[in-house]
């Protein structure tokens, strides 16, 4: 049975991708996409009923290893061909080096390693599969009406949707493979597939900017791929195995192995777009919004942080681990600062992703059970909320033809449903009792013994509140003008939004249960060096050694507060409306305007503080990138 589920989760998307590529019919494509989405969602949920650590050596009785080797070379040769046709030297060198090294690896790698314990279904993998399959499916469904509008807007003669959806679905399969595999060689293969998929998706619109940005994404991720391959080769030569569980069991004794582990982490940093590699993820926003949503929430960048969490036992309790925490925390703060200076909605979301992933990496670096738990919470809640916010911005952009948040001022008066969902989504990022805040709370309490780290986290946490609260408030800035009617939207646009916001709230409510069923089994069995007491739950209260977070009681209080506030809002509906305060110089004709010089009516306008002189890209990019590079060198040096 787990065999079949694994087959559906990993292989079916590859087959569906072929089908989607071949099909040129809109309604058939819709059926196939929906069917794949249902299959993936169902299988990822069915996986929960299977016990931990179910190993499989083959898929449905077949050994896929030779096929994987073949496809691995195919992917690398495609990347090489891309490099050659674009005359991009860096990509050519990186792909060429990987082809040579991969051939070496296949020649010298220990034969017994391949074939045994190819897949591992443990709670961490289940959590990741859930994030990839469920959130990914919702994004793909939302993309159906979105891409139709998108192509109508571009006036394309031949639809490019077949390629688009093929790559989207393929991406999900590759991510599932990446988080389920227990063979570091296969991990590398799936890692490269995600690199190629992201390249194809970013390039999709074929504008000059899209082409340039996709090449940047390709070379940065190929650099990570090369680092991963070197680490893989090194580990397999030294330990004689590529079985991830065996590696984790051996590394604490073999301290010299921290350098290859450091190379793996370097690959994770490029994939998670951590400073100074953030430019590829920021460039990726030229792509249609479903691509951004997929890259930022369910796939791609999550592969990077997954790597850190998966390998945390290998470096836990070392100096290297402390530097990992610092690298992550620094990105958390710096990217949050950069987000303040942005007015482009997608860019704010991008920096916020980079920032939150930094926090997750910091958790992996702190490496206590509570910190790893915080990291797992953050992965799940970030995926759901960030997918939601990207889909909101995409939906808004198709309506107002802008992604500048200044143009979204007062959006509530135009599209109240989407605006309210977006506001609630933004608030779930920063306020209790929601999951993101729970994760942040755990992260700060778990790292409170590391002074430098906790100072950085404290600053980053405050800065994060600023850019989310500002955006949420801005959606609601509108002059009072009577009744506002809900906008109409296709069901496949609205349902994903409702589904994701419901998931963000409900998963937060069930956080204690999720902790007990998924996170506790992971952190209580991890061979971590830094062991403090494993947190527990009672009566919906998450109890750690250092403190406690009453999730469900807080939810009840929040519900009471919300009911009171809604009652107040309803009663206020009968209250006499008035114009904004304008120093008493209100125009008699329009209460939103004031009488200015020459008795002209003037509409006052304000815009946000962006603090460009302090947090602007041109001001701090150079400094934060340099600092990040120094920290990464420190990290790799710490592996020696």
């Amino acid at each position: 049975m787990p065999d079949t589920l694994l087959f559906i989760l990993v292989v079916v998307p590859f087959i569906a991708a072929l089908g989607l590529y071949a099909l040129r019919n809109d309604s058939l494509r819709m059926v196939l996409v929906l069917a794949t989405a249902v299959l993936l969602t169902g299988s990822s949920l069915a996986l929960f009923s299977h016990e931990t650590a179910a190993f499989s050596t083959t898929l449905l009785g077949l050994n896929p290893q030779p096929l994987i080797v073949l496809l691995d070379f195919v992917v690398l040769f495609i990347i090489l061909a891309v490099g050659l046709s674009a005359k991009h030297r860096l990509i050519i060198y990186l792909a060429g080096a990987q082809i040579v090294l991969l051939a070496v690896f296949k020649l010298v790698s220990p034969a017994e390693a391949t074939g045994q314990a190819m897949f591992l279904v443990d709670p961490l993998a289940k959590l990741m599969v859930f994030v990839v399959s469920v959130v990914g499916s919702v994004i793909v469904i939302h993309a159906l009406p979105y891409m139709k509008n998108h192509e109508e807007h571009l006036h394309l003669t031949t639809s490019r949707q077949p390629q688009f959806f093929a790559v989207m679905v393929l991406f999900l399969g590759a991510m599932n493979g990446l988080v389920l595999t227990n063979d570091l060689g296969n991990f590398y293969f799936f890692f490269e597939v995600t690199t190629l998929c992201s390249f194809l998706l970013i390039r999709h619109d074929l504008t000059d900017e899209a082409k340039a940005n996709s090449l940047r994404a390709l070379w940065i991720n190929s650099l990570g791929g090369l680092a991963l391959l070197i680490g893989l080769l090194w580990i397999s030569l030294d330990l004689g195995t590529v079985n991830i569980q065996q590696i984790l069991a051996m590394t604490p004794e073999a301290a010299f192995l921290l350098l290859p582990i450091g190379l793996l982490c370097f690959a994770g940093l490029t994939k998670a777009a951590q400073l100074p590699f953030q430019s590829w993820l920021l460039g990726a926003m030229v792509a249609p919004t479903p691509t951004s949503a997929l890259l930022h929430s369910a796939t791609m960048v999550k592969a990077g942080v997954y790597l850190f969490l998966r390998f945390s036992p290998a470096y836990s309790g070392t100096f290297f681990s402390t530097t990992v925490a610092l690298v992550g925390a620094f990105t958390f703060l710096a990217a949050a600062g950069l987000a303040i200076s942005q007015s482009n909605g997608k860019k704010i979301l991008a920096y916020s992703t980079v920032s939150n992933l930094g926090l997750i990496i910091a958790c992996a670096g702190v490496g206590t059970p509570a910190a790893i738990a915080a990291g797992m919470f953050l992965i799940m809640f970030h995926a759901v909320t960030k997918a939601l916010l990207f889909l909101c911005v995409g939906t808004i952009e198709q309506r107002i033809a802008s992604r500048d948040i200044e143009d979204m001022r007062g959006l509530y008066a135009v599209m109240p449903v989407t605006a309210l969902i977006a506001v609630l989504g933004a608030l779930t990022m920063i306020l209790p009792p929601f999951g993101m805040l729970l994760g942040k709370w755990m992260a700060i309490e778990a790292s409170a013994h590391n002074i430098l780290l906790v100072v950085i986290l404290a600053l980053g946490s405050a800065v994060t509140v600023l850019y989310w609260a500002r955006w949420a408030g801005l959606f609601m800035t509108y002059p009072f003008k009577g009744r506002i009617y809900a906008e109409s939207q296709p069901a496949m646009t609205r349902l994903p939004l409702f589904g994701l916001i419901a998931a963000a709230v409900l998963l937060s409510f069930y956080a204690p249960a999720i902790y007990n069923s998924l996170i506790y089994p992971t952190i209580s069995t991890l061979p971590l060096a830094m062991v403090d007491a494993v947190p527990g739950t009672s009566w919906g209260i998450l109890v750690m050694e250092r403190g406690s977070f009453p999730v469900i009681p807080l939810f009840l209080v929040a519900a009471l507060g919300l009911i009171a506030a809604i009652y107040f809002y309803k009663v206020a509906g009968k209250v006499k409306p008035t114009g904004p305060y304008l120093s008493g110089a209100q125009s008699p004709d329009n209460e939103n305007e004031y009488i200015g010089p020459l008795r002209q009516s003037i509409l006052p306008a304000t815009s946000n503080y962006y603090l460009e002189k302090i947090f602007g890209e041109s001001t701090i990019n150079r400094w934060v990138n340099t600092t990040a590079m120094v920290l990464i060198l420190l990290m790799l040096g710490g592996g020696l």
Partner: protein
Amino acid sequence: MTSAQVFLALIAGLFLAPLAVGVLTGVDRRVTARLQSRIGPPILQPFYDIAKLMGKEPMLANHWLAFCSMLYLAGAVTSVVLFFLQADLLLIFFVQAVGSVFLVIGAMTVPSPYSQIGAHRELLQIIAYEPLLILVIVGIFLATGSFKIEAVYAMEQPLLFKLPLLFLVLGIALTIKLRKSPFDISASHHAHQEIVRGVYTEYSGPYLAIVEIAHWFEIVLILCLLSLFWSTSIVGLVLLLGITYFVEILVDNTTSRMTWRWMLGTAWITGITFSLINLLWLYYG
């Protein structure tokens, strides 16, 4: 905690503490008036103000203001109640942030330039004091080994001796939270405020009354945090609070409001340097 204690804690947190702060603000106004050679209003003036606001005809420039004022109150009250129930300090801090965020969102709902700028300045105040409060709480953790308030009460010596610099850092946060000069950037009680009442501009009548009451609860929370620094005796606690508050009034009346850049720089550079030094003492001491 027994159920009788929980009941007492709820009474104290919900009613006694905010009433005490109401009186304290009355005293504050009186002392301030004397410092400015005026007689000043009656001690109970803050309560008269609330009563008068409650009786005003409600008028709103945006209905969501009513919604946000209620959630501001809910966040502030919940954080105070959690404190009296001796919950986790960091959690209490995050719950009070709910209130501050809704105050800002409410102010942002109206396109009045005064309220908009006030809201943004309030956000800048939030990023100025939030890291400081987190670091004070981390300091308390390093001194007691736990984020729970009961661990503070188990201490035999006042925390002030272990966290002298963090007490000063908390003072900076307190000045910002109390809206006192030189940090009364987003709103203040003084007539010289050039953006009228900043973040409060659009809250009026009964809604302003709710916002004022919520602000009392916020002050209760900060004073409670201060009280943890002398948790071993009631006399010491009262003295510490009294002296600190008097110093706040003095500072308020002897300094003038600065720009937000200055506030952010001072709060972050001074506050973080002091915190780092004090945290290092704790770590290696």
